[in-house]
Each structure stands twice: as C-alpha cells, then as structure tokens.
C-alpha cells in the first residue's frame, strides 16, 4: 500500500466528524480525484432520460466521472450507453449535445458505428490482415446500464451495488414524482438551463436539501415576489415544519419544507412559478383515484439521488450535477412535462422553469454567489471546519438505519450523507 494513499485514507477518517466536515473535502484536488474514482466510477450515475432519446437514432452526449459517453436509442428500441470514443485512434466521436443519426462516423479515418455501437464500416480495410478481427472494435459499452421510470443510470464498474439496492427506499419518492403525471410518464425537455460555478460539486448537492438558507440567500427574490400571485417565500420559521431523511446509501429527502407550496395550493393563475390547474387535479384523480391524487398533490419534497441527480417536482425540474474539478461544477436543469396533464399547464411550467433556475433566474444566481464565496472563504486554512450541527440533539435513526430529523432545516440528512461518503471513500481503497 503506498504511503501517500494511506495518508489520505487515514485523513478521510478524520475529515468527517459527527457534526462537522473538514474544508479539504471541498478544496483538495486529491480528494476530488478519489471521488471520481471511488464514487463516480463505481456507483450508479444518472446519464439521461429515455424521453430525451425517444426515437430510434436519437442520442445525447454526457460525461460520467469526466469520461465522455453517448446515450443512444437503437433501431431495436433499446438504449445504449457507449463510450464516446472511436475504437481506432481514440478521437471523440460525437460533439453534439443531442441529435438523431443512424450511425456515428469518426471524422479522422471514417470508422463508422451503428447507434448500438456495432462497428459497421472501416474504409480501405484491405490493408488489414485477412484475419484481423474487427468485431473487437464495436464501440465499448459501459459495464452496467439500468433505467427506472425512464431515468437511465450507468455504472462504470462491472461489479458493485445492484441498481435496486442503489435506489433503495428513496425510490418511493421517485415514483411519486413520476406518478404526478396522470399517464405515469414524464417527457423531459431537450433544452436544459446550463450554468456553472467555481466551487465544489457537493455544494449544489447540499444546497438543494438546505432549507436553512432561503430567507437569507434569496431575500431579494422573496421580497420582490411576495405580492405576486404565486409568491416564493419563507414566512414560516424553518424550524417549525417538515422533516428530513438521510438514507444509508447517500440519498436524501426533505419533506414539506416551509415556503414551498404544494401543487394543491399553487395559485391557479399563471404567475412567477407557472400554473397548476384544477383541470390537472381532476385528471390526476381520474388516473390514480381521489385519495392517492390528493396524497400526491399535497406533498412537497426535495429528493437527492446521490451523487448527481436532484429533483424539484413542484417546479417540474430536476438538476444534473457534473463535477469538472474540485472547484468547478456544471449544472444542467431539465424541465419536464407530465404526460396526461393539460398541455397549457405543461407549457406554463416549461415556460416558467427559467424564472428560478436559469443563469438569469431569481433564485439560482444567489446560490451560486454563496457557493463562490465558500470557495474563496475556504482558502483560509486556519478555520478548518464546516458545521453541520442542526438538530443533532433531536435526530433519530429509523428502521432501516436512516437518519431522520424532525424539521426541514435540521441536518440529520447531511450527517447521514457524509457517513455514506466516508464509507465509500474508505471502501474504494480495498
């Protein structure tokens, strides 16, 4: 075992304390590299949604642990996740973020592959020996691909936790998100909002489950929109409402945080946030039954599927987190339509999706400002810790080992998430 790795490993043990996390977790490039290897190259990572590649030949490009891949729908109806890399001399095959093509052709020597990655054309192949085996050179598929309710995940590791285990009990919340569509399916926009910031990827993951920050970070937006027909504000103290869950596999849920209206309570008129209509409630009740529809419409929660997928169903959006380096992160925000919901409502939700979440939005930019300030502040090495102590005196451990906190702005879920982080970072050394 090499000394440098051992040193880092021992330090990982010490970087995660019961109520605080060491600054190096957010600033050390060696820890970032370990995360790419031990988390992003091992576990299940979200790649794209089946509705983004609905037709044979449809594709989109993405990255897993910085490695370029293509999500492609083949003529056989199946989706494939292929390394975006010509098998000949290593050129990246496809530079478009999305498109439709019956084949991928490398610009360098013209090697051609089908949308399932099968090698279909090699120019001037006569110079290769007669027994040269081209079947070795189909585009390489990533080792494991799985999908649930259209969300396609991939793992760069042939072994490890099964997809079902990866989702675990948090899958219940994913079902709720998609069940909000009367037809039980969502259609994802092929046009995400895209922004980046000069700080660590985990800041966005945490911020998404942070209901302590809104009235401070988003003060200007709350003040401006208070009088609007669909206000976005936090009048109720964050200590008084909601609950948090931190599962043992890294996922988190924050339920019923203050200030986020349910789909039942959204004003029917179009406003800042988009329109939830009575017509929609009726069609959902017809599809799911009154009781279930009411349950779905009256719950609101933020779901984080660790490491890279976070959901804000009251806005009909989810965010995909792409870590570039220890202090550079790209986020894409995808709005989606609920199949079976009134078209005008879906139009409204997509049209308004940028209001909070675009780079020009009311909300996102102030979060990014906070993240950037954290990156700069953490350049100070004297103060070493980031504090995650809210609710430590009143958290409980649930029946499946999950951490539970009795208020949305408690931090039991962050503590659980870092326990998981520590576990996989240490495991990876085996």
């Amino acid at each position: 075992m090499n000394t440098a790795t051992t040193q880092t490993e021992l330090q990982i043990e010490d970087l995660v304390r019961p109520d605080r996390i060491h600054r190096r977790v957010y600033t050390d490039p060696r820890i970032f590299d370990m995360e790419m290897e031990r988390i992003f190259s091992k576990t299940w990572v979200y790649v794209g949604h089946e509705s983004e590649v609905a037709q044979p030949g449809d594709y989109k490009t993405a990255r897993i642990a910085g490695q370029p891949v293509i999500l492609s729908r083949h003529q056989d109806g199946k989706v494939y996740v292929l390394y975006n890399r010509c098998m000949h001399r290593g050129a990246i095959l496809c530079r478009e973020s999305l498109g439709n093509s019956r084949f991928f052709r490398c610009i360098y020597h013209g090697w051609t592959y089908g949308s399932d990655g099968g090698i279909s054309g090699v120019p001037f192949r006569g110079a290769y020996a007669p027994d040269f085996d081209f079947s070795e050179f189909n585009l390489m598929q990533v080792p494991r691909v799985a999908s649930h309710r259209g969300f396609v995940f991939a793992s760069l590791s042939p072994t490890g936790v099964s997809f079902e285990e990866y989702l675990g009990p948090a899958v219940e919340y994913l079902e709720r998100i998609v069940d909000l569509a009367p037809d039980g399916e969502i259609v994802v926009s092929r046009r995400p909002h895209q922004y980046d910031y000069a700080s660590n990827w985990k800041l966005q993951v945490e911020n998404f489950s942070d209901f302590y920050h809104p009235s401070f970070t988003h003060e200007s937006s709350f003040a401006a929109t208070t009088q609007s027909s669909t206000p976005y504000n936090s009048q109720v103290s964050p200590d008084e409402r909601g609950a948090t869950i931190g599962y043992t596999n890294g996922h988190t849920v924050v339920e019923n945080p203050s200030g986020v209206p349910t789909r039942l309570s959204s004003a029917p008129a179009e406003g800042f946030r988009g329109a939830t209509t009575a017509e929609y409630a009726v069609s959902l009740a017809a599809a799911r039954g009154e009781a279930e529809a009411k349950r779905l419409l009256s719950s609101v929660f933020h779901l984080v599927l660790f490491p890279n997928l976070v959901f804000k169903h009251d806005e009909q959006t989810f965010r995909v987190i792409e870590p570039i380096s220890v202090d550079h992160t790209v986020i894409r925000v995808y709005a989606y339509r609920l199949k079976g919901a009134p078209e005008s409502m879906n139009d409204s939700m997509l049209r308004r999706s940028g209001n909070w979440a675009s780079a020009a939005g009311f909300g996102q930019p102030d979060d990014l400002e906070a993240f950037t300030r954290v990156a700069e502040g953490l350049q100070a090495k004297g103060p070493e810790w980031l504090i995650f102590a809210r609710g430590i005196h009143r958290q409980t451990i649930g029946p499946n080992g999950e951490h539970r906190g009795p208020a949305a702005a408690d931090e039991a879920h962050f503590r659980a998430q870092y326990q998981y982080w520590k576990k996989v970072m240490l495991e990876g050394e085996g």
Partner: protein
Amino acid sequence: MSISPTEAYEIEQFLYLEAELLDARKYNEWLELVTDDCIYWMPNGREEIDPEKEASLIYDDLNLLKLRIARMNHPMVHAQTPPSRLAHVVGNIRIQPEGDSVVKVRSNFTMLESRLGEQRTFGGSFEHTLRRENGSWRIAFKRIDLVNNDGVFRNLVFLF
C-alpha cells in the same frame, strides 16, 4: 415602405439611450421605455422554439419584468453585490418599417461586463419591435440572441 433619415437617426438614438440606461442598470427608467404588452425574450439555445412552450433564459412580460427589476434593485441582491459594470456597444442597425408607427429593428451588440476582477464579453444580436406611443418610441418586443446562448453561464443578473 421606407424610413426617412431623420426617423432612422431617431431610432438609432433610441437604441443608444436604451443601452446607456442598461449600462447604468437604471432599470426603473428603462421600464418607462417599454409598452404595457412588451415581451423581453432571451432564448437559451440555437434551435428556434416557441417560448410559450419551452424553456428560455428569460421570457418576461411586463409583470415579470417588474418583479425581476424589483429583485435586481433590492439592496440584498447578493448575485449583484457588488454590481456589475456594463458597457454595451450597439451597431449594424437595420430598420424595417412594419406599419404607420411600428418598426422592426435588427442590430448586433457586444457587452462588456466586469465584476470582482473578472471581465466577461457577451455579444450577439437584438431584435426590437418599436411602437410609437404618444409621440415617443416604446419597446414592444426585445429578443436577445447571444452567440453562446447554448452554452454554460455564470450569473447573468442584469438585462442585456
């Protein structure tokens, strides 16, 4: 239909006045230049879409513009604390009359932005629809196409 040199000059000066207000982030004064039914639209990609049905960087009617400006003027707007320094350059102005008191104006622009020691350059094209109301030009429609609108952005908490 054609436009007189005097009218063309007026319209160009109007665009420069607009740019001057936007440079100074004088958004309440800029609001006085828009019609009640105005639309301010900044698409977020190259492909042509219906902004009523798809996501955009900004797609505001007057109500949303007012909310946006109230937020940008708020003392606790962290994304603009400190505020950006801005400089628009507007050129390649071509004017197309559309009726008695309506013109469509296409122009190109660049905009420099400096904040916290970092300078960014933006640019692309504007499409304005201007309407004469009570003797003055007003903006009924403004579309901004950034050359990099399919890209990845840091904060864009200002009007282009």
